[in-house]
């Protein structure tokens, strides 16, 4: 099953593989991104440093929406990773049961303001996350498992 839905613009990196992967005993990571899905060399870079015990699945946004039920029924624990708020919002409708979204890293860019050391949001992104929370999704910011989760409503 999917144990973590995470937004992280650094994609598959140390915090995901080591930080969360070790603690949650992760067996697979799904990276939902059309660009990486279409690029062999970007996939190769994403696989670097990932232990062989963790399967990496590259999915387009459309593929991810279709395959969520399959991943939710997987016997292994998995992480679904999106690089941005938009992609997570589009997947959120397909999440079963208690819906939770982890904001793991959205970094500085023009038009964004700092909400936490690792969370920078535009007004629009903030509104999208707020709307997600209003739909009953538990949205919180937390970079690593040992950090205290911060409810998104405290940041937007």
């Amino acid at each position, binding site marked *: 099953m999917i144990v973590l839905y995470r937004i992280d613009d650094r*994609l598959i990196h*140390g915090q995901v593989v080591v930080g969360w992967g070790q603690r949650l005993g992760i067996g697979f990571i799904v990276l939902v991104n059309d660009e990486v899905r279409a690029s062999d060399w970007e996939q190769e870079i*994403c696989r*670097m*440093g990932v232990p062989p015990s963790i399967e990496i699945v590259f999915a387009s946004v459309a593929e991810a929406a279709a395959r969520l039920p399959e991943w939710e029924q997987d016997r292994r624990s998995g992480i679904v990773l999106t690089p941005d708020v938009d992609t997570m919002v589009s997947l959120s409708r397909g999440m079963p049961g208690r819906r939770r979204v982890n904001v793991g890293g959205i970094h*500085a*860019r023009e038009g964004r303001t700092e909400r936490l050391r690792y969370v920078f949001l535009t007004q629009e992104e903030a509104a999208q996350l707020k709307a997600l929370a209003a739909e009953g999704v538990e949205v919180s910011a937390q970079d690593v498992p040992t950090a205290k989760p911060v409810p998104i409503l405290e940041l937007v």
Partner: protein
Amino acid sequence: MSEKLSGVIVAHTELAEALLAAVQAIAGDETGLVAVSNRGSDLKALMKRIDEAVGGRPAVIFTDMPGGSCAHTAAALARGRPELRVVTGVNLAMLLDFVFHRELPLEAAAERMVQTGRVSVGIVAR
């Protein structure tokens, strides 16, 4: 004689700056190295930061952990850039060795860094 190689250390939080400070304390100020942190940046912003540090010169990019955002970004930047090599597992021994071998051809320098770095890891007391 051709231009000496540049070195760019790219690492998490304060690690790159700290490594550079340690290299300078041991080898003096003329290291040919610059430090880049991944602090507060997504992959795109980090890539820009590394590219600026490289400055279009032949360079070895030293990164900390394979699979981390630093190594990921450096590898993506070096794609199609024959004047760049990316090494993972940066340590003090390899950086010090780099300072004194910047006249080597790029490929030889990168291979030497990997060897020096590996040789420096071991158990010295038990």
